[in-house]
């Protein structure tokens, strides 16, 4: 266990946000879900008691008769904003006084940094380069992430949970977002920052970053394992595998979408186009961890090899 190596990575000023993220994101997940569960308990109580449902103020927060439902922005909101600004300023000041922004040697195109890493928020994308060709990892996936985020409100037909925390009423949506944001995006950033060392090799926390380390791993394409050796059969085989994956995962997603009576009711509200977009995004999203597993566990490089592109 090389504690010094671990400390060198963790204490790098530019890595502070990721180390912070390790605590901040779980904290806010807990903070949000705690309120979600409180609202879920309330919703259950109210749906069992019709009379109470009519008279209740419908929030987990306390409310008594005679209390104003609204408060003046000045001072109640503005003082919060002012306080937030003051606290953020203090944090920034302390942070800026104690930790210096990194500055390396002058740019030198003939001396490659090893590892040469993108800024931390793009390390998820850089990590994807291990598993996919650059046109997928660097162009297609980011585009799909952006498009996927933008269309969320237009494909989510669940009218519940509008403006309050809830888990039970939006199970599928919450799990999908947590899967995408925490399990894929944040985890890959953490891997890219803390795990990947020289040569973009995998170093477990505490392993020394050895610049001369060699890993004898032979990455093979799926068709080589199966024993297909010539085009066009390689391309056709790969297309079938990818198509098969899309079919199977699409079916699995469909089972998930129709798992409960409530989710079937939501599906009824969706148009065909909404459903198709949802499925396409889910399948692509599932392809990522599957490819990661195929690469890390079975050393498979490409699944689908064609003369024009490889997946």
């Amino acid at each position, binding site marked *: 266990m090389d504690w010094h190596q671990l400390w060198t990575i963790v204490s790098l000023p530019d890595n502070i*946000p990721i180390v912070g*993220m390790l605590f*901040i994101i779980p904290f806010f*997940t807990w*903070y*949000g*879900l705690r*309120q*979600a569960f409180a609202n879920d308990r309330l*919703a259950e109580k*109210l*749906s069992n008691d019709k009379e109470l*449902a009519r008279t209740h103020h419908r*929030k987990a927060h306390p409310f008594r008769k005679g209390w104003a439902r609204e408060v*003046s*922005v*000045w*001072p*109640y*909101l*503005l003082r*919060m904003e002012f306080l*937030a600004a003051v606290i*953020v300023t203090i944090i920034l000041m302390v942070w*800026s006084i104690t930790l210096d*922004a*990194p*500055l*390396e040697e*002058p*740019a030198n*195109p003939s001396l490659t*940094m090893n590892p*040469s890493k993108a*800024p931390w*928020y*793009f390390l998820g*994308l850089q990590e994807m380069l291990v598993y996919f*060709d*650059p*046109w997928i*990892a*660097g162009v*297609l996936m980011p585009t799909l992430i952006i498009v996927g*985020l*933008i269309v*969320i*409100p237009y494909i989510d037909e*669940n*009218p519940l*949970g*509008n*403006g*309050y*925390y*809830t888990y039970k*009423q939006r199970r599928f949506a919450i799990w999908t*977002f947590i899967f995408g*944001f925490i399990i894929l995006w944040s985890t890959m950033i953490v891997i890219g920052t803390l795990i990947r060392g020289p040569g973009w090799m995998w170093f477990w926390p505490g392993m020394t970053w050895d610049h001369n380390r060699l890993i004898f791993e032979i990455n093979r394409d799926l068709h080589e394992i199966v024993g297909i050796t010539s085009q066009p059969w390689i391309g056709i085989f790969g297309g079938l595998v990818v198509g098969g994956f899309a079919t199977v995962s699409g079916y699995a997603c469909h089972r998930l979408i129709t798992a409960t009576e409530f989710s079937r009711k939501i599906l009824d*509200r969706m148009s065909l186009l909404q459903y198709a977009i949802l499925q396409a995004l889910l399948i692509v999203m599932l392809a990522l961890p599957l490819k990661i597993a195929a690469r890390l566990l079975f050393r498979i490089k490409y699944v689908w090899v064609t003369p024009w592109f490889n997946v």
Partner: protein
Amino acid sequence: MADNKGAGAEKEAVTQSTNGSENGARTLLGVNIDPDEIKKKAQMDLKAIQAPTKSEVYKSIFRVKHDQTARSRTLGVLSNVFLHLHPAKVNRDAVRYSFTWGMGGISFYLFWVLTWTGVLLMFYYHPTKVQAFRDILYLEHDVPFGKLLRNMHRWAAHAMVLTVQLHMFRVFLTGSYKKPRQFNWSIGVILLVLTLLLSFTGYLLPDDQLGFWAVTVGTNMARATPMLGHEGPFGPQLGMTPFNDVRFALLGGSIVDANALLRAYIWHCIAIPGFAATFMIVHFWRVRKDGGISGPARVMLESEIKPLRR
């Protein structure tokens, strides 16, 4: 009021002692001087100073009274150009930190911090290969508080990337993107992308190894853009070379060099902040137009779902 009288009496005593017993008008160099008149005017000024909120200067600046009545509180927010994006009143539970997490507001505040520190940094920075790196050294070692300035700019940028993501997380968890706020969520996603791009373009500016290689790695991906990059699928077939593809357009060349530095600088300091500010205006405006912040709203029950009308 007691103070007022006391001060007035004192002033009176002073004027009396200088004037002696004579109290009539005098002429000095052809100007009429009436001690009584001067005394009166001085007392008026004194009163005005002691009640500044009643002076014309104050009224002209603040326009409305700022006492503790509901009307004044409302007007205080609505008639102030910086505060008028707020409504006059909000949901009593919406001011709880637990609901909003304050991340949107903090992101906006960080954007301001970045604008200010960024403008100050621009005073010391030349986006040229010869000077850029030296300017950073100069900032770190010679400019008073230069190091603090640069640190603050960088850490605020990191913090903003984090707070914007947390803001999105909160908005998702509270379902705030749902009707009628769908479009504002989409604007928000664009703002997230702009935040990342702002941060990324700033990375190259110190012109050190870190920025150079990060931007090299980042823009190399553009080579692989399908159809528009010279290494992307169908790129070569469409005539893409390192000297005419999308990466060339981003860098102003086939490698990260002087043109790339200038382009990064202009994107970073002018173009993207301009786009971001524009989208922010729309974002905030839509928050108000879509009915203020989403909640905490009343919990809705499954049995209350209305049938969909298409």
